[in-house]
């Protein structure tokens, strides 16, 4: 456990040193621009745009960090040959992987929390006081964070057995495919035999369904999200992450690092 904590803390420090949190400046400028501009070029959607733009930015920036940094977590250590020095110490490979995972999730949590605070600040400038229903935004932010954690796990898994470029492509591809996972179950109007339909159905359950973490439509309009949904999405993410990280640990421990 101590080993995982140490690797995680170092990963977080490294991300901060790499100026990953500089994206917050871009986010702040985006929110300020939206708060000023939208009211002047549209009708009646100032608040909606602040919330949807804020959540979209949190999600997109988070995905970029999760994919690019997630893939680099292992490959960079191998390229710089720092991994060998680390593994020579009493650190197991799976501990290294888990530490890297938690370190990046920590970075994303700090980043997401800062952006959420910025979103509330922008919202406060267009309408104050804030309403009770505005608290639902936090639920959306929490679910985005869960989604990012799943993506980090995916990026880690792919970076364990392929090149960084392919790992980025696979992670991004699985993310986009995961958004359409439910559609694979309800596909209609295509001339498919029952075997293919069953296969597609099976794939739809294998893919991480990223729509499980998407409540933007409700939150933007001040509608709440049922607690059961949040619990189920949390459990879904935890189980999924556990499966992926187990797979990653197995692949990584068998990998020939010579």
């Amino acid at each position, binding site marked *: 456990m101590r080993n995982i904590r140490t690797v995680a803390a170092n990963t977080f420090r490294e991300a901060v040193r790499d100026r990953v949190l500089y994206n917050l400046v871009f986010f702040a400028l985006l929110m300020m621009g939206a708060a000023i501009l939208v009211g002047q070029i549209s009708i009646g959607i100032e608040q909606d*745009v602040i919330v949807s733009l804020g*959540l979209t930015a949190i999600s997109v920036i988070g995905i970029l960090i999760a994919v690019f940094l997630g893939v680099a977590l292992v490959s960079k250590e191998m390229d710089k040959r720092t991994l060998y020095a680390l593994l020579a110490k009493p650190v197991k490979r799976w501990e290294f992987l888990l530490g890297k995972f938690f370190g990046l999730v920590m970075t994303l949590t700090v980043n997401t929390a800062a952006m959420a605070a910025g979103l509330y600040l922008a919202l406060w400038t267009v309408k104050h006081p804030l309403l009770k229903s505005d608290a639902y935004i936090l639920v959306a932010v929490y679910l985005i964070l869960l989604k990012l954690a799943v993506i980090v796990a995916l990026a880690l898994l792919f970076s364990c057995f392929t090149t960084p470029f392919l790992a980025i492509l696979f992670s991004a591809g699985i993310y986009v495919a995961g958004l*359409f996972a439910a559609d694979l179950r309800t596909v209609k109007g295509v001339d498919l035999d029952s075997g293919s339909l069953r296969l597609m159905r099976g794939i739809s359950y294998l893919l991480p369904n990223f729509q499980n973490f998407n409540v933007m439509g409700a939150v933007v309009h001040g509608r709440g999200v049922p607690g059961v949904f949040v619990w189920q999405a949390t459990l879904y993410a935890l189980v999924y992450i556990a499966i992926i990280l187990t797979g990653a640990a197995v692949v990584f421990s068998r990998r020939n690092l010579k």
Partner: protein
Amino acid sequence: MKTRAIAGMFLAVAVTAGFLCVWRLQEGLDKERSKVESERDDLALRSPALMKKLSLEYAPLVGAIYWTRAVQYYGLKHYLGDQNLELLWPLLDISSTLDPNLIVAYRFGAMFLSDAPPRGAGEPEKAVELLERGIKANPDYWRFYQDLGNVYYFDEKNYLKASQAFEEGSRNPAAMPWMKIMAAKIAAEGESLETSYALWLDVYQTTTNKDIRKNAEVHLRLVKAEMDIREIDKAADLYAQKTKHRATRISELVQAGLLPGQLGDPDGFAYVLSEQGKAEPNAKSPLREEWLREKK
């Protein structure tokens, strides 16, 4: 050192000249662009379902962007005096599909669609379709029934359906009590100036948008003028019955005790009688042009 300074100056001049050149070229290209582009307005992606898929999990934001496009499109056409609003419906269709809870797109969109040209697209049937879609997606929002009633009442002149829309909306516990009154009033009277005034007054008092408020204000002034003109015409008819000739000036009606005094329109200009002895806004009144357009 001197050479470097000269080179720097030369570079600054060259860059400035380059940008001036780019600016001039762009102006030329902008002038020529109209010859290259098709004359019809165009929207690259018209399928709302496809747009929803393409927007991944960010449909609410893309919906808001499309709504802004609709507002900008309507505003620009209005500004240019161009009555061709063929893209308004596709833009609203996409916005409301991407975000079915975007209330504002249904409400104002229906207004843009239903209003007769030059103010709107003159497509009340599309406005009805949009509002019905809004009701389906947001069944608890009673204001859609009011908007639907307004479209049926003002644009379709279908008073039975207008009354039914107000009646249906009044069943929502959150609806204003006057919805029921309006349903009964329209069912009993059909179109009346008092009802029109009440409907526009609500739009004026409840909207937060300055353009919609201005539009409602214009309608309120016109309806008020119409109510005044109706009173004056009634007095003029009575005068003709009594004296066997029509009055040529309103002062004659006042002198005969048929009007309490010289009436002024909402802009403060006194009404006049036409050659046929019918009341109308003063030629100096800014309201007259709008009134004549409505009469057409």
